[in-house]
């Protein structure tokens, strides 16, 4: 008896239509300004905050999140050390994660957060609040340019994050803070 794999592949081979060409996707240029990125991000519930320089990060974080007790970060000495072996119950208590991102997309307010920058895969969604640190020079206009510039392809795991976790599943009323981070600030330097 043939396997499901063989049967599916054979059926796909037998039933597929005549080959059609794979199109080349043009590079649609567009606006990659910080202004555009900030406007779009604000429209989806996120926020941009300016950093004078990366060395200001820690003081800015404490100023913007005075209430945050357990802060995880790879960019300054954190109040809670997280790595990929951190147990779930510790992760569950994180108030704020401050993580670097590789690029930002002006058309939709998304930033690329690869696994290597996450400390733990669950950290960006399990943390109550999320701050992502972006070099202004790494802004691109559209998703086409973003995918072309992913430093390490998709990596083992990586996500575009556009704003805080949200839902409109109850009568289409927008609620920020569904399961993931309740707020998202992109700190731009």
């Amino acid at each position, binding site marked *: 008896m043939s396997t499901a794999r063989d049967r599916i592949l*054979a059926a796909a081979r037998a039933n597929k239509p005549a080959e*059609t060409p794979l199109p080349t996707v043009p590079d649609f240029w567009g606006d990659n300004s910080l202004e555009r990125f900030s406007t779009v991000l604000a429209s989806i519930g996120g926020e941009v905050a300016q950093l004078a320089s990366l060395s200001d990060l820690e003081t800015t974080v404490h100023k913007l999140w005075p209430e945050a007790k357990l802060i995880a970060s790879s960019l300054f000495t954190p109040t809670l050390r997280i790595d990929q072996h951190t147990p779930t119950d510790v992760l569950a208590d994180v108030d704020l994660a401050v993580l670097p991102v590789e690029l930002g997309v002006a058309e*939709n307010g998304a930033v690329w957060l690869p696994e290597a920058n996450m400390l733990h895969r669950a950290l960006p*969604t399990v943390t109550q609040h999320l701050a992502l640190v972006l070099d202004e020079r790494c802004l691109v206009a559209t*998703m086409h*340019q973003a995918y072309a510039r992913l430093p390490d392809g998709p*990596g083992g795991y990586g996500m575009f994050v556009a704003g805080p976790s949200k839902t409109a*599943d*109850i009568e289409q009323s927008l609620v920020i803070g569904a399961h993931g981070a309740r707020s998202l600030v992109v700190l731009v330097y």
Partner: protein
Amino acid sequence: MSYLTHASRAEAFTLDHERTSWHDETLWFVRQKRDKAVYAVPEFQELRNLASAIKDHTLSRLDEYLAQFEAAAQANGVRVHWAANAAEHNAIVLDIIRARGATRVVKSKSMLTEECHLNPYLIKEGIEVIDTDLGERIIQMRDEPPSHIVLPAIHLKKEDVGATFFKHLGTAEGLTDPQQLTEAARQHLRAKFLAGEVALTGVNFAIAETGSVVVCTNEGNADLGASLAPVHVASMGIEKLVPRLSDLGVFTRLLARSATGQPVTTYTSHYTKPVEGREMHIIIVDNGRTQQLGRPDFRASLKCIRCGACMNTCPVYRRSGGHSYDFTVPGPIGSILSPNIDLKKHSTLPFASTLCGSCTDVCPVKIDIHVQLYKWRQIVSEANHLPTAKKLGLKFMGRLLASPTAFKVSGMLGRKGLRLLPYGLTHNKTVNAWAIARELPEPPKQSFREWYAQQAQPAT
């Protein structure tokens, strides 16, 4: 065996006039948000063409891309499984869960697992399955199927959700504030995420060249589940493939704008390799898809990226509700997918359309939905699945419209009859379905042809 028709199921939904109007207006509002987002992208129509061509190409080499995807995923340390049908899929999922001795499963949205009826199967086997998308969790508590593929609980009002959470989550009686209800669900589901042993997700896109699967959510539930549980199982239909990572540039620009009018979903997550010491499985499912691939008139339905735009725009869907379709995927796209699965059972769905073509106009991958609806009607008719009244009616109308004399005479009889016959007869709801919720037009004194004959001949 006889099945309830779409119309008779819709009747139950339309009994509540206020709710029907609310449903109609709410989905139309989503359609308007879609338009606003789409018009803001100058190259949107070009993106639709590209998406359509990429999907056409992928289907034309589907076997090769499936093999390429499998090899790439395996090289990434992912275990790839194949399931010819729903039963095989469900058995594979159960095997993976049992192999870990697990009982607690957290699941994010997957229309494929709905199609396979995975939840009831696992629950019967003693597995706790928690749907973690808020809308899906609400309807899971109520033991209802989703009524929309993107907005699963769109048939419910906040009062319904409040009552459901009062019963299942112990929230205050009469609580209807969406913010507070969502917070209650967040707390409840957080505990489930933290305790999850196996995470199930669907797949929005699978990339042949990298072996990755991409999952799009707004809530972050897929990521919380898959990143906390030691085992991640992603179920995908064979049609989810795209050849290249760069193709996602096209599809991520189309999906959320078409679905809800957002510029992109909050999380667009790319799962390629499992963390060391953890497991990632991908189940590739056929379940009727290769058969649809072999139907030249209908194979384009496999290009669907499940955005739901065709539902939001459909005047029939908006006024009849998702449950009236009695199929995993409702609305226009469901009405062209379902006859492939069971022609007799779903024989009324291709007729649940005005053939206005709005679905085709908004489809981000340019599926000719209304043309396929029309073509399925022919097949339903040839297979003799039309109700007798409809069959006779169509035959009669066919003859009448083919004969100028019969057309002329019947027009005259109609105009006279409407004037002379009692209202109770012309508007009898059993005989005349049109009159159930509508008045017939005032009969004109003469026909167009009569009027035209009376006009002075144009000067030559």
